[in-house]
């Protein structure tokens, strides 16, 4: 249920020492069941939909397939509008970080890719592919695995990931990611509890396809290497228990356990506690205590994927509630709209009717009915008016403590409620809000009708938002500091460069002066041939002459080259300016001078440039006007910057090249 819990803090299996582990395993083998704290007994109402076999609905004319249907990153679209796709064809490439692909649930044509309301309490639009079905339901290529026992677990996990399988219990966590595990595990739990009222998808699936689920379990056993399998079914589903027991007969490694009907015993952590007596640590995962859990529907989907090569393209959805004429279960193609499903089940709408996705405890009211079924949707509940009346007015908390008695996570709901109302996020952390599984048991028993879970969800969203903002601020700060450092460094480098250039110039000047002085010295030297001259003087004079000669040769050369360069640069800049000025100032001339060579593309580019200049000028004018209006006496200065900035505006590159050669 709370797969999204932090995966970073993983305790090693220090839950048991060897003796305790052996005792625990012996107890489990003996069939002992534990209890989790709290829990409630809401009316079940399961017989509404579990009397009829899982139906097949006619293929809807149109499917809305959201590109992301699991927890994680969406994949990259690999089909285009207008493409014909076959059933089972991948529509997206798997996203990063073990993201999952989505597949075409039937054959048809991609008619559009739009932002469409999502199957989410907010119904905020998400990128959705619209598939116009052709009704032929033609399968594309399937890659069944003839003998999965010949493949190792990594290959099978890759196959399962390719088939886009996500946990069908509701959270839609990528199954492959859950299976890829290196920790030692001793129990595989198949969750067929389905504790939420009304929902019967797994119940019907277990009754009708026990052999398939069983094969799926064997595949999971092969992948995970776990010997012991516990299939958990609530004791209010005797038919499902019998069907699964019959299917597993003769296989000693699989035990079917009937667990007492308590809501929320189907929660991952709660069921683990019921079956093994072990508690998943806070911030931990089931694998930390040696357990892997999969939903029955997921096991069946894995069986279809491995044995028949079918990617996840449909799922069992419970259609229930008193407002439906034909409640029951149905194989719904992913992307089928809730509207189509309701029509199939004979929905009798009434004013202010509400339709709930999921069950009455954890589901949410759909703001609109054109949202599609996704991998995680297990139930559509259309209650009659009196069936699920809207909550009464919220009253003050009387601190009765009923909520704390029923909390399956041993939290203090009323304390969390006060803290959430106070927006005291540190306090909420201290009281372990993150361990709340949002099962709704506290709100169910609250005599003051306080929508407690509502407060927790909001507080969780706020805390997440705060975390994201903080993270973003940290990144922004880092980037700002990096930029500051870079600017400082560049400034320093520029200064150094200027300094070096200045030094070089000074040196050159000094040398030239020295050479000139030396030359001046040598002339009188040679004229006055005095006998009293020492040898050293002569040598010095010779050196000076040599230097002067060298300097004389080098200086003009350097100067000439520098001058040449400057001239060349000026010429280039001028040419560029002229080239730009020509079309700008006299646009009529340009086509005249070279009509043949003026392609349409260039014209459009010129147009764009002109448009940009016009816009810039308009902006300047508007600014100037505003300035003039606000400060009448300062009308002249406002003109000035316009002129100067106009010059900088026209050719930024020309400016740059000149500056670069300086």
């Amino acid at each position: 249920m709370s797969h999204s819990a932090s995966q970073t803090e993983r305790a090693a299996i220090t839950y048991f020492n060897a003796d305790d582990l052996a005792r625990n395993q012996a107890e489990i083998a003996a069939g002992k069941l534990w209890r989790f704290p709290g829990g409630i007994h809401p009316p079940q109402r399961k017989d509404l939909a579990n009397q009829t076999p899982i139906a097949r609905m006619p293929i809807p004319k149109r499917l809305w397939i959201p590109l992301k249907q699991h927890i994680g990153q969406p994949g990259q679209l690999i089909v285009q509008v207008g493409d014909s796709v076959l059933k089972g064809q991948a529509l997206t490439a798997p996203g990063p970080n073990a993201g999952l692909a989505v597949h075409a649930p039937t054959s048809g044509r991609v008619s559009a890719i739009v932002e469409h309301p999502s199957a989410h309490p907010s119904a905020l639009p998400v990128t959705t592919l619209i598939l116009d079905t052709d009704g032929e339901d033609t399968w594309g290529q399937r890659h069944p695995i003839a003998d999965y026992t010949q493949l190792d677990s990594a290959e099978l996990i890759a196959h399962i990931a390719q088939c886009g399988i996500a946990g069908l219990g509701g959270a839609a966590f990528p199954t492959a990611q859950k299976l890829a595990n290196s920790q030692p595990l001793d129990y595989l739990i198949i969750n067929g509890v389905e504790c939420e009222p009304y929902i019967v998808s797994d119940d019907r699936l277990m009754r009708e396809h026990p052999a398939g689920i069983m094969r799926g379990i064997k595949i999971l056993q092969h992948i995970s290497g776990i010997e012991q399998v516990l299939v958990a079914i609530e004791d209010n589903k005797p038919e499902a228990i019998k069907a699964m027991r019959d299917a597993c007969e003769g296989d000693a490694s699989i035990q079917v356990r009937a667990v007492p009907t308590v809501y929320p015993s189907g929660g991952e952590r709660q069921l683990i506690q019921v079956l093994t007596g072990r508690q998943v640590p806070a911030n931990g995962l089931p694998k930390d205590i040696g357990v892997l859990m999969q939903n029955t529907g997921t096991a069946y989907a894995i069986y279809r994927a491995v044995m028949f090569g079918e990617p996840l393209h449909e799922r069992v959805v419970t259609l229930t509630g008193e407002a439906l004429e034909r409640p029951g279960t149905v194989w719904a193609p992913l992307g089928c709209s809730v509207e189509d499903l309701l029509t199939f089940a004979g929905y009798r709408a009434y004013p202010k009717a509400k339709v709930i996705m999921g069950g009455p405890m954890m589901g949410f009211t759909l703001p609109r009915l054109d949202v599609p079924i996704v991998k995680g949707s297990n139930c559509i509940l259309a209650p009659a008016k009196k069936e699920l009346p809207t909550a009464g007015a919220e009253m003050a908390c009387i601190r009765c403590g009923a909520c704390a008695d029923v909390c399956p996570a041993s939290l203090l709901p009323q304390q969390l409620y006060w803290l959430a109302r106070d927006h005291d996020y540190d306090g909420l952390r201290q009281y372990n809000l993150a361990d709340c599984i949002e099962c709704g048991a506290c709100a169910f028993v609250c005599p003051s009708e306080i929508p407690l879970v509502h407060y927790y969800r909001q507080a969780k969203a706020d805390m997440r938002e705060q975390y994201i903002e903080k993270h973003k601020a940290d990144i922004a700060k880092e980037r700002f500091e990096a930029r500051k450092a870079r600017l400082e460094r560049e400034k320093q480098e520029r200064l150094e460069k200027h300094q070096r250039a200045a030094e070089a110039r000074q040196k050159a000047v000094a040398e030239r002066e020295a050479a000139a002085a030396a030359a001046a010295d040598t002339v009188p030297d040679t004229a006055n041939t005095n006998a009293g001259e020492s040898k050293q003087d002569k040598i010095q004079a010779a050196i000076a002459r040599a230097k002067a000669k060298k300097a004389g040769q080098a200086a003009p050369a350097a100067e000439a080259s520098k001058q040449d360069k400057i001239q060349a640069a000026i010429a280039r800049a001028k040419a560029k300016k002229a080239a730009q000025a020509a079309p700008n100032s006299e646009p009529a001339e340009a086509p005249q001078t070279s009509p043949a060579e003026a392609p349409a593309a260039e014209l459009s580019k010129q147009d764009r440039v002109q448009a940009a200049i016009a816009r810039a000028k308009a902006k300047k004018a508007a600014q100037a006007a505003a300035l003039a209006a606000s400060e009448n006496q300062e009308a002249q200065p406002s003109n000035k910057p316009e002129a100067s900035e106009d010059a900088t505006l026209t050719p930024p590159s020309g400016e740059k090249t000149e500056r670069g050669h300086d």
Partner: protein
Amino acid sequence: MSVLSGILIGMAALAVLALLSGVLLGFASVRFKVEKDPVVEQIDSILPQTQCGQCGYPGCRPYAEAIANGDEINKCPPGGQATIDQLADLLGREAKPLDGAHGVEDVKKVAFIREDECIGCTKCIQACPVDAILGATKQMHTVIADECTGCDLCVEPCPVDCIDMLPVQQGPERWKWDLQQIPVVEVSDTSDLATEVKA
């Protein structure tokens, strides 16, 4: 003699004791030195780091320093009232409403360059405090939306007005819950319900 020696011994003992405790204290002050988190750091970590300069200081850190030196805490529009409250909490000052002279609290925005109209002048790149704009001279520029803090500083320098500040798109992942809990009640007589629906 005995009196004198007694005094001497006493003095020596005290001197040794003083020396010992002096050494101990000196060692402790070096060994267990506590690097107190300076208040500027704490203030800076509360500020939203948009580096927008709306407070009148060139970036968040300079404003943090100014606050530490006694400036008002209500000059940060991107942070809004939440930031003011946090600062008031931290500094033990009174939480005032946001100073309207520095701007008003707005929804989160992100810069978007209309790429057809961009002339490649690089002016926005130079203005961006967090280097969130990509581009080169005479090449089209674009904003890295994930890195943009929505500070608005690139809008003004653009000579062709091709930068828009768009509200950040809110996906379902970051949506804040707003719904009534769905209650389950004991339904005693369902046949009664069915008739009502038909009616």
